[in-house]
């Protein structure tokens, strides 16, 4: 028995070491990227990272929490708008705007979450969709404050972060830090309870978990990280448009999570890379992007509902579980 468990512990430790090694390698690659790639690809990489962070923040509640987060783009857009408005209207210093924008998203997440967590599943999603659409409508109509459908352009950003390389480095550093934090959150006791609620809400409630409170916390955390992604979007693109918080964007991000695999941590990042890549590079050949996305999505749901990473990770995971099981015996 002890032999089995010690070998399991050894394997776990070596796996952990492998993971650390892979992370370090990824960070080094990210840092070196601008030296090798032409400007356009650096911009593209930054966009992928921003969208990946956005998708990962959605996956926090969607994949790990099992919450039907139908309108996540609202928090993304709220962060972006808060950032842009603080710089253009309030003339706030950059660091303050960077700090406040995700907090605005988190507060919005708290407000929307507090209303929605009273409901579950489809009702939760639909109410969230309606509240989100309300926010979109206000942003879209409020010409004097948000610029209406023109959005906000000419956002004053210091040269150091508005250049392609500068924006990339800022994005890369922030995204890596955020991913690390989210990874810690998912594997914290809170994250475990969150996943327990996803797997079986009745049992979780029976052992004394306050489901609504945890879902509300999850919502606020996810909104916070989505807000950070929104800020980074402004840094990379230099503009904000109300389309950022339209409901179709939310569904597109869900497609990214689905594509990568929503029971995996890095799946949404992979999905974001694939979708953003396809959109950017098919754009040169055809304007029928929505047809392509629709067909990909149909094929995914029909034949690959676990996602790409889900397909790879799942068998490995079940093997681990199996050995853990025998180890216990």
């Amino acid at each position, binding site marked *: 028995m002890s032999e089995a468990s010690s070998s399991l512990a050894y394997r776990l430790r070596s796996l952990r070491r492998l993971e650390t090694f892979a992370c370090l390698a990824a960070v080094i690659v990210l840092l070196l990227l601008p030296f090798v790639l032409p400007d356009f690809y650096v911009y593209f990489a930054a966009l992928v990272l921003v969208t990946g962070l956005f998708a990962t923040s959605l996956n926090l509640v969607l994949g790990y929490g099992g919450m039907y987060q139908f309108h996540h783009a609202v928090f993304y857009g709220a962060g972006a708008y808060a950032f842009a408005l603080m710089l253009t209207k309030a003339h706030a210093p950059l660091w303050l705007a960077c700090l406040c924008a995700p907090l605005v998203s988190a507060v919005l997440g708290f407000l929307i979450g507090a209303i929605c967590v009273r409901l579950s599943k489809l009702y939760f999603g639909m109410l969230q969709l309606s509240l989100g659409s309300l926010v979109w409508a206000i942003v879209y109509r409020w010409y004097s404050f948000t610029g209406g459908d023109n959005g906000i352009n000419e956002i004053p950003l210091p040269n150091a972060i508005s250049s392609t390389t500068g924006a990339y480095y800022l994005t890369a550093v922030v995204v890596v830090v955020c991913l690390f934090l989210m990874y810690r959150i998912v594997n914290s006791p809170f994250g475990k309870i969150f996943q327990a609620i996803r797997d079986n809400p009745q049992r979780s409630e029976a052992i004394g978990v306050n489901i609504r409170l945890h879902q509300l916390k999850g919502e606020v955390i996810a909104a916070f990280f989505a807000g950070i992604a929104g800020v980074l979007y402004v840094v990379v693109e230099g503009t904000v448009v109300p389309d950022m918080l339209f*409901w179709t964007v939310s569904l597109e991000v*869900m497609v990214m999570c689905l594509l990568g695999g929503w029971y995996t941590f890095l799946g949404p990042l992979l999905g974001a890379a694939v979708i953003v890549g396809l959109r950017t590079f098919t754009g040169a050949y055809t304007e029928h992007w929505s047809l392509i996305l629709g067909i990909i999505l149909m094929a995914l749901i029909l034949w690959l509902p676990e996602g790409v990473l889900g397909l790879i990770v799942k068998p490995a995971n079940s093997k681990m579980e199996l050995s853990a099981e025998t180890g216990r015996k």
Partner: protein
Amino acid sequence: MHLAVQLTLASLSQQVLVGLAETTTLFIVSSGLSLVLGVLRIPNISHGALYMLGAFLAYSITRMLGGTAAGFFASLLLAPLAVAFISLVVERFLLSRLYERDHLMLLLFTFALALVFNDVVNIVWGAGYRSMQLPSMFQGSFSFSGLFLPRYSLFLLCVGPLVAIGLWFLINRTKIGKISRAAAVHREMVGAVGINVSWVFAAVFMIGCFLAGLGGSLVAPTQSITQGMDASIIIEAFLIVIMGGLGNVWGALLGSLIFGLTDSLGVLIWPQFSIVFPYAAVIVVLLLRPAGLLRSTW
């Protein structure tokens, strides 16, 4: 002072009447959505795209038939039928394979359908907008005691109740309605007594999508027909269905009344942000009654 009061009263009732006419299309579209949601349990995001398809088809059919009143009435029947046929094909070949999946997958799948329909519209009709004229019998407006009501709004006010009565008859008095109600409550049991549930689902899906097409062809002469006209109506229809109670057609009626009236009255109070009022109404209703106003079939 007296004049001002009369003016507001007149404009108020005017606005209520116009709002009621708009409610008609909202009701027709959302009752179809509610039917599909209640019986098939599919949150059909592509419902809005089918509505848009109905509008474009109505435009083309009316033009093909020479733009006459007869052509317009024919398009009111033919365009929804074409939409229903398309939905039948989609249901048989795609959706019928997915009934066991959870709602999130169904939602995303119908989103994919909406994307494809959108692009098909783009390919067939191009990216620009189209507009069609009302037949001459519907142009102009009636006026009585200081109120002006466009003739077409009056027509819509007649169509709405007709559709509601038709739906009531279909659901309560016909065999397929009774079977579909039973299937909404207990799918397996209906199958166990020897009824082909799969075809009942196909029929209900067709009826629901027919209603989407009908809504689209009814609004076709009143607004510009563009790509993206589906994006706002689908959200509104979903809100109405949620507010009324999932799968309850009368809930859809009640919901669209609340939605349409708060919208049209909101214009009087705060024109720039009139859109806020219906959404606020939905939020208030759902806070007071989280499961919707009327009993849901879920």
